[in-house]
């Protein structure tokens, strides 16, 4: 209808306008003032000197490790009433952390008070530290674990939940910066609305699976705002964690004052050493930095080895694991873009950001 074509102008313009707003938002944020030039060394120092220990924010974390999505698989193995159900759910929640993406909220007020919330669909997992009290709460099954920290262990158990924050993770990478790492500075970036230096760590090693690690260091405070770990041969980060919003205000004290709600299953757990603290493997997605008994190699080529568990078959017989692993000489291997895990036939577990051959060699030693 020639006379009325102009009535369709709004319909044509609306998507364009929305596209402009969406893209414009991207442009607008990238247009924030660039921070002053700094050398890589200066940025490293800035990050090291960061004193921010009171903040709250929202964190997005996602992984692209080349693993299948096992969330459905985990559920079915749970309800399948397998004999080793606790192992199965441990494993599936560990894998869930590795494969799914998460949104977290963190509230930190000094080293003594913190709260991390993993926002699941229709559920939430909380880790609250208030002085000597450590609470883990899981709303999906209304369970809580309570531990009391020994008076002298002021920093140890923070590993549980805070290792998911960019700051904690970045510190681990930055602590590990050694001569085997090239440190450069990329173009300034904007993370959570703040301008930041883009610190790029490139391993000098040829055997590691890690191609580079990018850390956004807040230009103002030196607080790491995001960490992206890139694997060899991929352009998307294999692991990504970043603040989507950040406030440096002191969070409300109520948040750290946790009393388990009525009807909750509360387990008291002693804390003999730091390994037992993180319940249900809910701790570290980056298993490469997992606490370990045996460490071989250095820098990017580090390999960790867990001694044989009491019943090796419980691991290898798990239907989920047999789906994920492939059989190799001397055991089963779980290969991700960033991390290789070898489960030897005698039940030892070796892991590292290295090709499987290196693990096999280490296992053979």
């Amino acid at each position, binding site marked *: *209808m020639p006379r*009325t*074509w102009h*009535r*369709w*102008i*709004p*319909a044509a*313009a*609306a*998507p364009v*306008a*929305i596209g402009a707003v969406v893209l414009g938002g991207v442009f607008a944020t990238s247009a924030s003032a660039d921070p002053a030039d700094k050398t890589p060394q200066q940025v490293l120092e800035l990050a090291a000197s960061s004193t921010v220990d009171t903040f709250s924010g*929202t964190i997005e974390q996602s992984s692209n490790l080349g693993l299948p*999505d096992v969330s459905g698989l985990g559920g079915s193995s749970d*309800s399948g009433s397998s004999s080793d159900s606790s192992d199965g759910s441990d494993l599936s929640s560990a894998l869930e952390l590795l494969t799914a993406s998460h949104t977290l*909220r963190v509230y930190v007020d000094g080293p003594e008070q913190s709260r991390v*919330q993993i*926002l699941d*669909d*229709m*559920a*939430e997992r*909380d880790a609250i530290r208030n002085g000597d009290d450590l*609470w883990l*709460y899981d*709303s*999906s*099954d*209304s369970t*809580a674990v309570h531990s009391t920290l020994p008076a002298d262990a002021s920093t140890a158990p923070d590993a549980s939940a805070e290792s998911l924050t960019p700051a904690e993770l970045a510190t681990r990478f930055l602590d590990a910066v050694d001569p085997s790492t090239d440190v450069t500075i990329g173009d300034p970036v904007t993370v959570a609305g703040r301008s930041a230096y883009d610190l790029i760590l490139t391993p000098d090693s040829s055997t590691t699976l890690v191609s580079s690690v990018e850390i956004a260091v807040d230009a103002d405070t030196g607080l790491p705002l995001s960490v992206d770990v890139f694997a060899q041969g991929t352009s998307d980060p294999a692991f990504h964690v970043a603040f989507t*919003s950040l406030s440096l205000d002191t969070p*409300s004290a109520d*948040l750290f004052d*946790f*009393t*388990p*709600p*009525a*009807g*909750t299953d509360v387990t008291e757990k002693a804390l003999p050493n730091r390994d037992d603290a993180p319940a249900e493997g809910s701790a570290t997605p980056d298993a490469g930095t997992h606490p370990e008994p045996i460490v071989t190699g250095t820098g990017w080529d580090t390999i960790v080895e867990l001694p044989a568990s009491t019943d090796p078959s419980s691991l290898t017989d798990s239907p989920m694991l047999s789906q994920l692993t492939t059989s190799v000489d001397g055991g089963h291997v779980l290969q991700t873009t960033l991390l290789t895990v070898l489960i030897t036939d005698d039940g030892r577990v070796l892991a590292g950001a290295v090709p499987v051959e290196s693990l096999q060699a280490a296992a053979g030693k």
Partner: protein
Amino acid sequence: MSSSDPRASGLNARRTTRSLGAGFFASELAVLFRRRRTWAMLLALAAVPILIAVAVRISSSGSSGRGPAFIDSITQNGLFVGIAGLTIAIPLFLPLTVGVVAGDSIAGEANTATLRYLLVSPVGRIRLLVVKYLAAVVFCLAAALTLSIAGILIGIALFPVGPVTLLSGDTVGIGDSLVRSLLIALYATVSLLGLSAVGLFISTLTDAPVGAMAATVVLSIVAQVLDSLSQTEWLHPWLFSHYWLGFADLLRQPIEWSSFGQNALLQLGYVVVFGALAYGRFSSKDILS
């Protein structure tokens, strides 16, 4: 038809300026809520939490271990029944009723041949679209509130009522929990704005209301299926159903508002795009029904 004196003076006075349409909006609401169909749909929605509560009450031997944890928690606190009802109703029942109202909006008028009389009244095509859309929004709100209120009432009747445990493990009082229930109903209303706009547009495409209703409902199901497929992950944030279950964020401590905001923004995008499409179609359409 005694054509005695149809021009009695006072009755023939006309407004000199055109009214904004508040009267017509009121009339639209009256038509919507005078239909037995509307009440049947609201009653059906109210039945959802009531059935859940009764079923749980009868078989309250313990937790089933399946389904959302809400369903289990209603035995401990009746105030959860409304939320449980909304959770169950959001994927299908709510889109169904909203699809009926939005799909019927223009096509239904065409079908009863009232559309041409409204237009020569003249109501103005844009004004008709806006009023129809607003009426659909009012229905969304009524539907969500019906679910909430029916749930809360049956919950109070059948289960103990007390402070409510949030997902974060914190506990809030009854007043706070009622406010959150209201917020969740609002969230559900906002969630349905996009679907209402889609339904309005589809309704301008046809004179067969049943077809427009069915198409709208089918689209809401397609959107949810796409939202659950990992192959279409890139599309997920753009699907109008993407944040439908995000109201759980209102049950955290502190309230996580970002999903409310993102949801509202996404729905606004749908309203703008499909509102413009509906305008394009309806304002250039020949009314031949």
